[in-house]
């Protein structure tokens, strides 16, 4: 699903963010991307989301070389990817329902299809009773679940999460991780960037470790 071939990213001023990164993530696989702050995790995710182009090497997702995509094609590619942020990034002027429906409206789903999908997504994150609530009145954990529902509502083949449990307590973190595990069992490819050791150590998934822009370790978790 995701393929990095000798990928490097150098920013202006010759600051090397990534250097010679090589890995493959198979469809339906789940992996953690770990490393210290500033190690290059966010840059790697931005490359996968097409927000940056690599300085050299090839980033391929679902067979598409992302460096060749631009404009409408890039937008359509992003419509097939789910993204979860550390801060759920919700629109407070919209209801929970409308926040979750946003990717569907952007992707051009029909109005008859949208309620079904939103309902299913709300049920997956146990928020069926909050559909009409305003996100500003939800707890941090509930907001994060709304963010997750928004990421999966269009049933993406790839889910990318950037520190999804960064603002949550251990109990909520565990709950969110369980959700990701369930999605992975449904065949979604998942890449989670996190620097929380406890989260990574608790789950038996592949672990990619980045240090100073280099992939220094690629192996299975402790269990």
């Amino acid at each position, binding site marked *: 699903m995701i393929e990095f071939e000798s990928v490097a990213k150098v920013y202006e001023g010759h600051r090397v963010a990534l250097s010679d990164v090589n890995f493959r993530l198979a469809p339906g696989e789940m992996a953690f991307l770990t490393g210290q702050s500033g190690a290059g995790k966010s840059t790697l995710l931005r490359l996968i989301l097409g927000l940056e182009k690599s300085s050299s090497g090839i980033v391929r997702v679902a067979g598409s070389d992302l460096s060749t995509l*631009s404009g409408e094609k890039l937008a359509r590619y992003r419509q097939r990817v789910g993204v979860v942020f550390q801060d759920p990034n919700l629109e407070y002027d919209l209801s929970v329902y409308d926040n979750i429906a946003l990717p569907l409206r952007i992707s051009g789903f029909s109005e008859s299809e949208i309620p079904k999908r939103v309902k299913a997504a709300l049920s997956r994150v146990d928020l069926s009773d909050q559909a009409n609530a305003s996100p500003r009145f939800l707890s941090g954990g509930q907001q994060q679940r709304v963010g997750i529902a928004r990421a999966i509502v269009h049933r993406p083949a790839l889910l990318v999460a950037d520190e999804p449990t960064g603002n949550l307590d251990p109990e909520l973190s565990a709950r969110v991780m369980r959700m990701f595990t369930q999605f992975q069992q449904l065949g979604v490819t998942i890449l989670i960037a996190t620097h929380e050791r406890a989260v990574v150590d608790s789950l038996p998934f592949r672990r990619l470790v980045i240090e100073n822009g280099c992939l220094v370790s690629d192996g299975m978790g402790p269990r």
Partner: protein
Amino acid sequence: MNRWLLDHSQAIKDAWKRTADRLTQFMVLVCLLGILLAIPGWLAQIWLSMSSLVPEEAVQSEAIVFLNKELDVEVEARIELERVLSEMEEIERVIFVPKTIALKELSVQDGLGPIAELQANNPLPDALRLKFSIRAPKVIENNILTTLLADKRVLSLRYYPSTRVQYASLVEKLGLLGIGLSGLAVLGVLMAVFLVAAADVVDDQRRIELYTLLGASKRFIRRPYLYRATWLGILSGFIACLVIISLNELFSVAITSNLKALDSSLKYLPVDGRTFIGVAITALLASWIGAERAVSRRLNALN
């Protein structure tokens, strides 16, 4: 189609929300743009009003070209000269005035007609009366006259320059000043809309990044901003017309009242239709282009 309508209605809702959130800023901008756009609008209104009121004689120069009596083959030479002059773009009409007619005209004026000797031995030359085009510039008219004076078929000539030609340089300077002011005003409108739209986009950066990540196309993201710019253009165009009407009533009463007397339709709409349409289109286009450029620049930087 249904999706298209839904997307646009959503964009209109977003644009309305954005406008309502910053209503004071929006209204100040509308008034500012209205006043800026009123400058070229008012100048255009004065220009158009003046051109409707100025009689044709004031903008059309004339010349009487007296033909040489000593020409060998008089008729052919005169006809050839008449043809050459008629083919010139800058000359609208060439009228041949035979010496007999000229003498009759003079007779009416000074009573010399009945003198039989004058009729038998007419001392006047034949003449060509030239009416220059109303668009002929002063330089071209002068060039034609110089050429004619150097022509051996021409005895002499009398030139009656139009008021337009007499005041050509002053009018030209005023025209350039008007165009310059208008250009600056339109540029000011563009810059104001650009800066405000750019500030809006910076304010909405988090939202734009989110929409980009969710796969929204640039067109989708741009839409609410363009709707807002459209409203801005319509309202500022309306304000500009109100300002033009006020300026007319305050500073160009004579022109306005003359125009109303000449053109009954202006009794109900005290702005010339061309000015109205010109200001409305300029307001709309300037707002739209300013906003489009600002948002596109930001989106391109993001992608």
